[in-house]
């Protein structure tokens, strides 16, 4: 390290990060020279916990992997189990799952847009967006009874039905959301200080996005046409007419435009679902202590942040033998390094927030001794003692 350079630690506690994670920035004056992401501050051992609980109990654990994409995780989990069971779920429940999933996408993207505005110091926009986000939160509450962690999908269908009497009200609320999002699209694409801070900042080229396995909106902002809803449709996404938005810039502004357009598209999908939903039962029977036959399954879901992969291996018991989750942020986190090299310190928060990171879904940890080529893990007690020893040194 030269004399002019020094290291700025961002996180584990920093106002720009909503979850604990550590990034070490080597800077020269205001210019970032190098970035080193260090994940593992929020590891909760969810996969291990799932292996010691029954399938129905796991429904509620998997939902709590992430507060914002709870429904995406639950959908992926139920799809895995249903595939191993060989269960075909009722048509109506597929529509309801899509409805909740797209509402969740609206709420997540609006939340992200507000946070992005806050990161560049535009608090007014942040407050306005979060005020309008309350509409979709209310809508989710009406549909599921909760503002987050909706607990809608269950193995064999969905837990709650949506009532036809409320459809006009849902339509009206979705119209409001569409109209407000259109307004914010105008603001983001024309307000000069936003353009100054977002256009050409944190660029990832298409080749880099593919090489670093970027997922979801981050990849689409770089011009990679990847959307699980189109590439390998699940539920009823092959029947729904919707458009996939891509941008070519790969910068923060492209990220904003892709997400805002997706929000409006999600509102349209919700309206389509309300118009086309068939009548019928909403779930198949699955008793809490049922055993699941031997087998394995992988399920892909397009969560708000990108491709979400769940893997289930069953050995014929009432608990999974092995469960594995790969959240989209793990794919996106590497692009941050490329995006920030050569950028300004001032751009760190917006570029970091630009990939819509969700660190606690991503976190995994293992101890590696590179010199001895050894890998091991620690339990809670060992970790605590290790931490105390580390600080005493």
């Amino acid at each position, binding site marked *: 390290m030269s004399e002019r350079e020094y290291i700025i630690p961002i996180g584990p506690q920093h106002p720009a990060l909503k979850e604990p994670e550590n990034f070490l920035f080597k800077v020269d004056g205001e210019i970032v020279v190098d970035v080193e992401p260090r994940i593992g501050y929020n590891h909760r051992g969810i996969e291990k916990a799932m292996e010691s609980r029954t399938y129905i109990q796991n429904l509620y654990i998997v939902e709590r992997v992430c507060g914002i994409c709870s429904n995406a995780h639950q959908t992926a989990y139920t799809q895995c189990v249903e595939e191993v069971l060989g269960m075909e779920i009722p048509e109506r429940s597929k529509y309801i799952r899509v409805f909740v999933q797209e509402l969740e996408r609206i709420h997540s993207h609006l939340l992200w847009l507000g946070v992005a505005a806050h990161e560049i110091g*535009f608090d007014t926009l942040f407050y306005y967006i979060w005020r309008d986000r309350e509409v979709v939160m209310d809508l989710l509450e009406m549909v599921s009874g909760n503002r987050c962690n909706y607990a809608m999908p269950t193995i064999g269908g969905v837990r709650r039905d949506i009532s036809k009497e409320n459809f006009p009200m849902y339509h009206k609320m979705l119209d409001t959301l569409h109209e407000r999002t259109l307004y914010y699209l105008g603001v983001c694409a024309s307000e000069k200080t936003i353009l100054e801070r977002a256009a050409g900042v944190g660029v990832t080229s298409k080749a880099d996005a593919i090489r670093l396995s970027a997922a979801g909106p981050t990849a689409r902002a770089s011009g990679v046409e990847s959307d699980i809803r189109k590439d390998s449709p699940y539920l009823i996404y092959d029947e729904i007419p919707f458009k996939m938005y891509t941008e070519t810039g790969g910068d923060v502004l492209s990220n904003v435009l892709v997400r805002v357009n997706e929000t409006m598209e999600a509102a349209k999908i919700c309206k389509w679902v309300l118009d086309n939903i068939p009548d019928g039962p909403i779930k198949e029977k699955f008793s809490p202590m049922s055993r699941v036959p031997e087998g394995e399954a992988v399920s892909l879901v397009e969560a708000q942040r990108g491709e979400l992969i769940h893997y289930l291996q069953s050995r014929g018991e009432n608990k999974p033998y092995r469960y594995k989750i790969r959240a989209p942020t793990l794919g996106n986190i590497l692009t941050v390094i490329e995006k920030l090299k050569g950028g*300004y310190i001032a751009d760190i928060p917006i570029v970091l927030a630009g990939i819509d990171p969700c660190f606690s879904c991503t976190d995994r940890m293992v101890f590696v001794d590179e010199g001895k080529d050894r890998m091991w893990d620690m339990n809670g007690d060992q970790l605590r003692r290790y931490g105390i020893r580390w600080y005493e040194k």
Partner: protein
Amino acid sequence: MSNLAVTAIEVLIFPGILFLTSYALYCNWINRKFAARLQNRIGPLHTGWNGILQPFADVIKLLANEDITPASANKTLFLLTPIIIFALPLAALFVIPIQSLSNLWSYAPVAAFEGDLIVVLFLLTIMILFIFLGGWSSASRFGAVGAERAALMMIAYEIPLGLVAISPAIMAGSMSLNKIVEWEVSSFANFLAAPSLPGILLGVTLLIGAGIYVICLLAELEMRPFDISEAETEIVHGWQVEYSGKKLALLHLGHEFKLVLAAALLTSLFLGGPAGPWPIPPIVWFVAKTTVCVFILSNLSVLFARFRIDQMLSWAWKYLVPLAVLQVMAVIVLSGVI
């Protein structure tokens, strides 16, 4: 009453330290409440009527907080900075004409002398120097970045701030704020009696000057879009990051005095100071005009996203400085005509 007693009352109570402190807290409340309403929030609500005592409560709470000095900080500078940042704007406020104690319908500054405008401008510059030293001495990496940014920002806005402040002084032919206010009052009365084209041109030029001045004041006050040196989401409050407890309380109070000073300077240089139609006393005019100035400042601060430091510097040198120079030149030309 002896002369000494009057001076003591003027310095300590009205329009001195007590009045200015409560007025600074009031301005802070106005700023917070107004910005909150613009952003569709409520703002302070529970402490006193509509939360009017909230800034006061914040200061009291900070005074009671634990005061930590980082082990590797430069102790002397670290201690000195909050005191100086608290004292300087307060000192500068004493040359602003507010209200005379002896006559209800006249105004006079507590301490006035020929050239006090220069002193105010000097104090504004020294404040930034101490912000830099304070950030640097805290031995924090965020503090160092914030300090560096504060110094860079000063390079950008200091020159237009000084130039524009001089233009009313050129017209008044005096460097004393009190005389500038007197000139404004008399020339405005003359203009109303006999409107003329040069008069209108001068008014427009001074209005442009006031606009430039407002922009520079936003930077001086570290308000959006120029809160670059304390950018919360980027460098965690920059140069203030290591301050806590009593020192932070002093910094906050100093910032509130600075807000009053900015509004009072804007009022004195461009809006005719505390003067206004009889029978309303000057103090009421002063409060009304400075409140409007705070409204303007807080309104502008919620409209934009934060600039990056390089954008701010290039923007200020490309547009703000030339505009300020042109404005002063126009004023000099017009002063020859009138």
